[in-house]
């Protein structure tokens, strides 16, 4: 079974971010990057499926030279090879652009399964995987918490709201977007890092894919990025203890959404 995993490199969680001059992105100097969290789970899932069913894991990542670090980490954990989409034209693509680029190579790779993270920690669109499935003509399921494969058949457990789950059956090939927590990602081992040095990483540019700037022109733009303005708000609930408790529950459930 051939499994492709789309990996994105994002600023580390809790990274201290400064806005760039243009106020539409962050200052990338002095920021450290890591593999987007749900993507790390997607990779682990792919590696475990490979261990069970055999086959190959191909990692795809789009971005500047720094993403080599994320790619190497994936290879060190056990992926077999990688495709690095590197081109100045690929900077700051929207989800549609990223999916377009990825689909160009995956159309010819024809993997049995494509795994992506549910969403990226930086932009949080949750669209790249879905659009990619559409472009490839694959069925897809999102927010996946468990995968069962039986021959040509795929059964997956999706997370719904409020503690509900849903089981879905679908044919292969398919695309799944993976939720964090589906497994416990492994560590890269020393030996794995040594072996990764000789694993192939192929580089792909826009020209090689026959993509011009029209194909990649964004359908979505970031207009302005800003640090959330802190507003502290105190509200007093009125009524009897019972009424206030009911109001509080209502607010916690529907406004704060913590219940």
């Amino acid at each position: 079974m051939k499994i492709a995993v789309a990996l994105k490199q994002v600023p580390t969680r809790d990274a201290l971010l400064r806005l760039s001059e243009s106020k539409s992105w962050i200052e990338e100097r002095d920021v450290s990057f890591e593999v987007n969290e749900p993507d790390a789970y997607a990779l682990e899932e792919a590696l475990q499926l490979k261990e069970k069913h055999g086959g190959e894991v191909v990692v795809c990542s789009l971005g500047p030279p720094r993403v080599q670090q994320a790619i190497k980490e994936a290879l060190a954990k056990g992926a077999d090879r990688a495709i690095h989409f590197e081109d100045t034209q690929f900077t700051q693509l929207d989800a549609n652009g990223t999916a377009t680029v990825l689909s160009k190579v995956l159309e010819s790779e024809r993997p049995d399964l494509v795994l992506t993270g549910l969403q990226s920690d930086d932009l949080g669109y949750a669209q790249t995987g879905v659009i990619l499935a559409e472009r490839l003509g694959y069925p897809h399921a999102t927010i996946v918490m468990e995968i069962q494969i039986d021959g040509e058949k795929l059964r997956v457990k999706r997370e719904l709201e409020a503690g509900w789950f849903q089981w879905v059956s679908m044919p292969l090939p398919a695309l799944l977007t993976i939720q964090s927590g589906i497994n416990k990602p492994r560590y890269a081992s020393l030996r794995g890092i040594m072996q990764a040095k000789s694993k192939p990483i192929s580089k792909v540019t826009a020209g090689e894919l026959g993509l011009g700037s029209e194909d990649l022109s964004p359908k979505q733009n970031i207009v302005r990025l800003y640090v959330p303005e802190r507003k502290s708000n105190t509200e007093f609930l009125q009524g009897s203890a019972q009424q206030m408790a009911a109001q509080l529950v209502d607010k916690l459930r529907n406004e704060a959404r913590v219940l």
Partner: protein
Amino acid sequence: MTISRETLEADVVIVGAGPAGLACALRLAQLGADSKGRGAASSLDPENVYVLEKAAEIGAHCLSGAVLDPRSLAELIPDFLKAGAPLTPVSKDSVHYFTRHRSFRLPLTPPFLRNHGNYVVSLNRLAKWLGQKTEQAGVSLFAGFAATELLVEDGRVVGVRTDDKGIDRKGKPKSNYQPGYDLRAKVVVLAEGVRGSLTKQLIKQFGLEAGNNPQTYAVGVKELWEIPQGRLRAGEVIHTAGWPLASRQFGGGFLYGLSEKEVSLGLVAGLDYEDPRFDSQEAFQRFKTHPFVRKLLEGGQMIRYGAKAIPEGGYFSLLPTAVEGALTIGDTAGFLNSQRLKGIHLAIKTGMLAAETIFEAHSADDFSLARLSQFEKRWRESWVHQELWKVRNYHQGFEGGFWQGILHTALQMVTGGRGLRARYPSEPGHLRLKKLSEALPRNPELKADGKLTFDKLHDIYHSGTAHEEDQPPHLRIGDFDICNDRCTREYGNPCQHFCPASVYEMETSPDGSRRLKLNPSNCVHCKTCDIMDPYQIIDWVCPEGGGGPRFEGL
């Protein structure tokens, strides 16, 4: 549980990817490439040089001032400027003496603080850059792997063990458990920086240090700020003495212009102070309220925070640098010129000299102690010895306080470093800590304003520190009863104050008793606790590799 570990064989294992470890690795790769170029048959393959770094990324645990003396960098990478080293030439130098409200500029900068020809750097950025060069040269760099134990057989260091990953708080393996490796090597190079944990093991097992002065330390607490343009020149270097440190305290402040908009500033305080309630992070916050500093920072933004200890003892506190199977280089051995507050150039140089020694040993296939001791000979014959010999009594001269120190320094300068005697003795700094009952009344606590001054938690957040939460504590306390009873009475638990990252907290339990609570995930790996604890019962060991601060830009 018996753990089955995989064993890997390397030629050289280097512990720590700071300037010392990276320079050693890069020099080994250069020498290997040179001799291969000359057609040598069995050359050292850089791939068999393993560098272990506990930080998730090279440079993430590197924190310094810093003003770099480029002497050794120029020897290692002659075209370092063209090759893109992240450096800002020093443009201006001054020294100021602070009182609470005023500052007096020294009319002349003393020669050892003149920095013409030097560079202002962020060691984090420099190490990252050196790391890339080292990796390109073919060395095997492993970030996110800590060396947790020296492997010693029959009185010889034969390798190191790497950290076990995926162990929970109680010491049980988790589902992603991965045992550490036993890395065996012909020679192990310890480049752990100040107060290395394997170096501690080495000192103990090989009975090192005998006959010398003990090592003495300082801690440096710093922040990186973005300030409005026009207040400080790029490359401007300012040193301060005096307030907020007491006159009996060793140390001073620094402000370095990394660019016109970025200033690195910090306070260095000797870890041989007397007041058990002294808190370096708080003293540094006070430092920023001095009118001179405030004027520079006002309206700016704090970007990063961090802290790290510094070995100050100098020449007479150096460890023996070669033992059976191992060499020590850089800060971990004590190579630092405390008069100039400079160690990076010595770290690089000792790394290079160690590499040259190892390369010869490898060519001769002889890693005996006699051969490895050539390293000791090499640095003694180099400018490293000259530089450290001249200031051999500097730090000890300050043990009587600032003004005595100034007198000793002047005297030592005219006597070629000797001063009043051939070797000024010293004692471990923690022994000078006074009991609470003898301490002077304390300054009122500083109220952080959240703009210029910050409380510890705010600062820690800006160190980018993160650890896997579910792992055993990496601060091993020998006896909690001492903490909860004797220390409370005698010293008032100074750990709460000397830790610049709030790892140590005294918690009041429901029955009113106070107990020590550890927050290991706050730890910025500065090593102050291991050094300053008056009972010496804190043992700092490496947490799971990859955890710790992210000192970007520091």
